[in-house]
Structures are given as C-alpha cells and as structure tokens.
C-alpha cells in the first residue's frame, strides 16, 4: 500500500520537473543564486599601504583586524575604542587630502569599524537617528553611558514621537526586553552572519517566485493537459491521487528550499567563517535596537524557518487559486502580488496600517527585517513581536488550506 502511494507522489513530482519550462526555471534559480552569492562574498579589505584587497585575502585581513578587538564590550573596551578612533582621526594620514593617505588611515580603523557603528547608534540624538561622524566627537567619559543610553533613547522615543503608537503595557514590554539584554555584549568578527542576513531576503523571495512557478501547475495542469478525465475516473482519482498532489507540492517546496539554503549558507559560511554564531544580534549595529534577545544563529534559524513557512503557505495558496480558477496563470501571480503589493501600502505609514502590514505573509520571506520592526500584538493577554505571531498564524493557515484544497479538487466536475 505504502509503496503504491509513494510511487504516485514520485510521479507527481516527476510531472513538475519533466517540463522543459520547469528545468529552465530551476536553472534560472541557480544562476541568480550564483550572482547573489557573488555579491554576498564581495568583501573588501584595505591593507596598511592603502591598497584594496579582495577575495580570500580580504576575508583573512578583515578577520585578523577584528579579532584583535574581540572580547567583552565593557566600559573599558568602549573607552579604548573611543580613544583609538580619535587617535586615528587625528593622524596626519586621516587629515590629509590625498586618497591613498586617507585609505591608509581607514585601514587602521577596520578592526573597530563595527564597534564604531555601535557607538553611532548608542549615542545618537534619538532612537531613529544615525550620524556616521558621531563617534568622532565622543570622549572617553562617555563610555560609561554606552548601555544605559540604549534604554534611555527607547524611553525618550516612547514618551515622545511614538507616544500614541503603543499602550502602556506595550511600552513596558519593550523597555523590559531592552533590559533583558545581557550586558556587556561580546564582540567578535561575524562577517559571515552579517552577509547571510543581508542577502537572505533576496534568496527567499527568489526561491518563492520560482517555487510559485513550479507548483502552480501541480493541480491545474491536469485541466490544461486534458488528462483530468482519466485521472478523475480512476480508482484513486478522487482521493489518494489528490493527496499525492499535496504531498508532491510539499516535497517540491521542501526540496528546492532546503537545497537553496544549503547551498547559500554553505558557500557564505565556508568562505567567510562561522565566527560569532552565538553572539547576541545586538553586537552588530544593524540589530542594536532590536528588542528580541537572540543570537545570530537563532536569528538565522528564524529567517530560514520564516522563509520556509512563507514559501509553504504561498505555494499552497497558489495551488488553491489554481484549483479554483482551473488555471495556473493567476496562481503564478499570487506570490508576485504578495511580495510586491505590501511595499506600496507601506508608504501610508500609519501605526494601524503598519500593524496590518506586519501580519502579511511577505514578512515571513524577510524575517530578518521583520525582527527589527516595533510591531507589537497581544495574543492571549501576552505581548509579543510580529515574527512569532506570523510564524504561528501562517503555519495554521497553511494547515487550514490543505483540506480545502483536497475537498475542492476531489469534487471537481470534468465536463
């Protein structure tokens, strides 16, 4: 019994990949993946002579420079970074007009580049401000305020600009989350993770578009091929054959998605290193303001998991549309619309609209970015950010789609 059913599923998968257009779609995916990896690995390092290095030499140069500053980001270390930054800014090379001289000065700062960015965030005038030159105006006395400032800026923002956006409980929740961050942070080289995060949305969305194309026809191609009459008049045509299509959809999404992420993650981390995997995400300035207290690895798992749930949901949604319309054409459009429409609505920018946008499935495809949004929801009396909400919401919705898809297809009239 088992053998027969799995055989059916295998043939369903084969129907998908036997098509020339599917093969082209997969090649396209690999091609664009290659380009994305190329950009993700594009690291530069300036050596002490002011000349730019690329490739593995750049990676090892940058790694060595940043490893020198690895360790606890305590007051002592912050003070040293402030001093070192000022020292570099005041060297004749930094003050010179000559590009090469400037590059030499830049090369000295590469080890503290990331921490310098953290300073720009921590001492900014407001939570939403960022000034690239701010670090240059700091003095050693400021070091003591490094962590305290983070919560202070949040408080000021919540009491000022964002006063009406949050309830008192939500404000308390955010301040609490900030307070729960383990201090002092630890600093280390983590270029691998940063590059992974940076290009992950591109990779997920690209995969989704290709997946949408691959799975949109699983159900509806039977109509297009006119093979529906034989299928629906066969013994398993209105039960197990339908299940095997659902399973095939699941297999295609899972196989393509995991292959893509294995390749992407493998290439980037092999090249740039896994260092920093267990550091809090706040030790990178990109996530300094983030209120989720998780590590880089955990953030990446969120990105992978969110992307997977998003791809599954959109794939099955597109299959459902293909069954309802008996055509793959509108179905292929589903992921396209879901990815591109929210960016138009986003321009409205009211808090209420933001809350809605935060729940749209495109957020799952860019879970790394979603972690940075201050969208809060209360679920069952507990306050939480958007990512856990949409992860659960779309897992449930995907599970809800399956029986609808099954029942709609098995009741099809072929005439």
């Amino acid at each position, binding site marked *: 019994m088992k053998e*027969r059913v799995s055989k*059916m599923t295998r043939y369903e998968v084969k*129907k998908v990949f036997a098509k020339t257009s599917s093969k082209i779609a997969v090649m396209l995916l690999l091609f664009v993946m290659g380009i994305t990896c190329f950009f993700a690995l594009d690291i530069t390092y300036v050596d002490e002579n002011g000349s730019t290095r690329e490739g593995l030499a750049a990676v090892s140069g940058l790694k060595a420079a940043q490893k020198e500053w690895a360790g606890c980001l305590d007051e002592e270390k912050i003070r040293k970074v402030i001093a070192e930054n000022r020292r570099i800014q005041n060297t004749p090379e930094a003050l010179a007009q000559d590009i090469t001289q400037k590059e030499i000065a830049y090369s000295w700062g590469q080890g503290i580049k990331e921490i310098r960015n953290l300073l720009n965030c921590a001492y900014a005038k407001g939570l939403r401000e960022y000034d690239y030159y701010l670090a240059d105006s700091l003095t050693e006395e400021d070091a003591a305020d490094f962590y305290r400032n983070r919560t202070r800026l949040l408080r000021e923002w919540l009491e000022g600009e964002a006063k009406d956006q949050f309830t008192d409980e939500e404000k308390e929740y955010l301040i609490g989350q900030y307070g729960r961050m383990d201090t002092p942070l630890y600093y280390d080289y983590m270029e691998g993770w940063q590059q992974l995060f940076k290009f992950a949305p591109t990779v997920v969305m690209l995969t989704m578009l290709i997946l949408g194309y691959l799975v949109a026809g699983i159900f509806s191609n039977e109509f297009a091929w006119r093979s529906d*009459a034989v299928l*629906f008049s*066969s*013994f398993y045509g*209105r039960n197990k054959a339908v299940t095997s299509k659902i399973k095939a959809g699941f297999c295609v999404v899972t196989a393509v998605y995991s292959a893509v992420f294995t390749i992407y993650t493998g290439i980037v981390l092999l090249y740039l290193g896994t260092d920093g995997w267990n550091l809090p995400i706040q030790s990178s300035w990109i996530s300094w303001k983030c209120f989720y207290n998780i590590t880089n690895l955990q953030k990446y798992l969120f990105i992978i998991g969110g992307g997977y749930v998003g791809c599954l949901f959109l794939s099955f949604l597109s299959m459902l549309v293909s069954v309802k319309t008996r055509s793959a054409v509108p179905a292929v459009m589903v992921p396209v619309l879901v990815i591109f429409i929210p960016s138009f609505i986003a321009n409205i920018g009211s808090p209420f609209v933001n809350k809605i946008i935060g729940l749209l499935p495109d957020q799952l495809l860019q879970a790394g970015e979603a972690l940075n949004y201050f969208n809060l929801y209360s679920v069952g009396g507990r306050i939480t950010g958007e990512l856990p909400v949409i992860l659960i919401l779309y897992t449930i919705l995907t599970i809800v789609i399956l029986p609808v898809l099954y029942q709609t297809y098995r009741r099809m009239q*072929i005439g």
Partner: protein
Amino acid sequence: MELKLTNLTKEFKDITAVRNISYTMSTGVYGLLGVNGAGKTTLMRMLCTLLKPSGGSITWNGADIFEMDGEYRKILGYLPQDFGFYPDFTVYDYLMYTASIKGLRPVTAKQRIKILLRQVGMEKTAHKKMKKLSGGMKRRVGIAQAMLGNPQILILDEPTAGLDPSERVRFRNLISELADERLVLLSTHIVSDIEYIAGEILLMKAGEIRAAGTSRELIAEMPEQVWSVAAAKEEIDFYMQAYKVSNIKTTRQGAELRIISSDKPAECAVLEEATLEDLFLDYFGERTGEQNDEI
C-alpha cells in the same frame, strides 16, 4: 453485471445535453451513434462519474455509482474523446503512473503494461515521449491505459476518430479482441465502425436515445424503404428536395440516387436492401461523418 440508467438527465446552463435516458446494459458491445452535439460525450462522462447528472440515476448491480465512488471506478476503463496525457512522460512512465492511480501494484502493473503494449503494438515505442507520438499511437496508448485495470466496464469515446482507414480497421479489430466478457460502450459518428463491432446500437439524437437494437433489428424496424432511382441531370434537384437522398452516384446519363421513402418515388425505382447508413440518414436527416469525410 448490470449498468442501469434511469431517467438520466444532464442540463447545462442553456442546454439539455442528455434528456431523460433510461436504458440497461450488460456484457457486450454497445455502439452509441449520433451526430455532433447529440450528447454522447456528456452521457459517457456521467457514466465515468466525471459529471454529476442533473436528474435520474445510474446504478451498477443495483448500487448508485456515485455512492460506490472508488469501488465503481475500480472496474471502469475510459478513453476520453480528447485523450490528454503528460507530454513529457514516456509511454511507459505514463502507463506506470496511470496504473498507480488505478490501484495496481507495481508488479502487476509491469506485467499488464507488457501485455497491453504488445496487444496495441507499441512495445518498441515504450520509451518514447508521449508528445512525440503520432495521433494513432496516442490513441493506442489511450486504449492501453483504459485496459490497465482489466475493467468490467470499458467506455471508449470516439476511439477511431482521426485515424486513417487502415489504422481504423486495425483499431476495430483490437476493440473486438478486448471486448470479451466486458461491457463495452463506444461512441462514434462513423457508421461502419459500429456495424462491425457493436452488438447493440443506440441511436442518439438531441440528448435522447431514439432507437436501440441490433443492426438487423433496427433496419427491420425502419418505417421507410430504400429505393434506387436512375435520374436525369435535371431531375436531381427535384429528388433532393422532395426526398431523403442517402447517396448520389453520377453516371453518364445523370445520376443514380439512393432514396429513402415510404412510397415508391418513381416508376423506374427499384427496391433496395436498407443498410445502417440509410438508417442513420433516416434518423438524423443528414449524411454520416464517414461520407462527409469522403466528399
């Protein structure tokens, strides 16, 4: 073995494609004869549970076929009129997949496929892609597919359409060969197909079965007679308008007309033995597909 249709009706938005058909079939070959749009395909689709009737019922040995669900489809083989398949599958893969949805074990499936491919003369083309097959080859795979589950009910919708004359003869023989111990229902608008293989002929018109019986019975029951008339050129038009003319053979003097009429159309008219062709014309008032093909 009894397939029973009771007051079977199918209405589409603006048309009643099948109207109140009651008929019972058991083992044997049934030929469904009707012009385009008569409702043959619609009737067959209902018999294959692809379409739900708007009224009436279909039972197999007393049980409603829609309630039997898979149990009924298990004993069913169907070759649709527009037989569709997976263009990038090889013949073998296509048949293996179809066997799996028909509930055949892989071992059984392999044996059946081997036998059927030989029977339809496709052993050598088993690993060719479906989209690369000729029309005749596709039909043969279609037949093989319908026969996979060794069905008790075999429904073939215009199995010989689009085939060249020699291929058609071969196909007819194949169907006769396969018809043993089954209920075979095949539709066509080509009279000669049915004459050779069908035991029982159903004449379908405008969604109804107007007459049913063996070829001999139907011809015997024909209310009118068939006459042969030698007519001069200028008389042809007159005959064409006044009578049902089933055939015109031009001769040097004019033409020899085959006329269907209850009374003698002319002094010189000679009584002929009626054929199924004549019957078809009598019922449908138009010439058959085969003759049309030849014009």
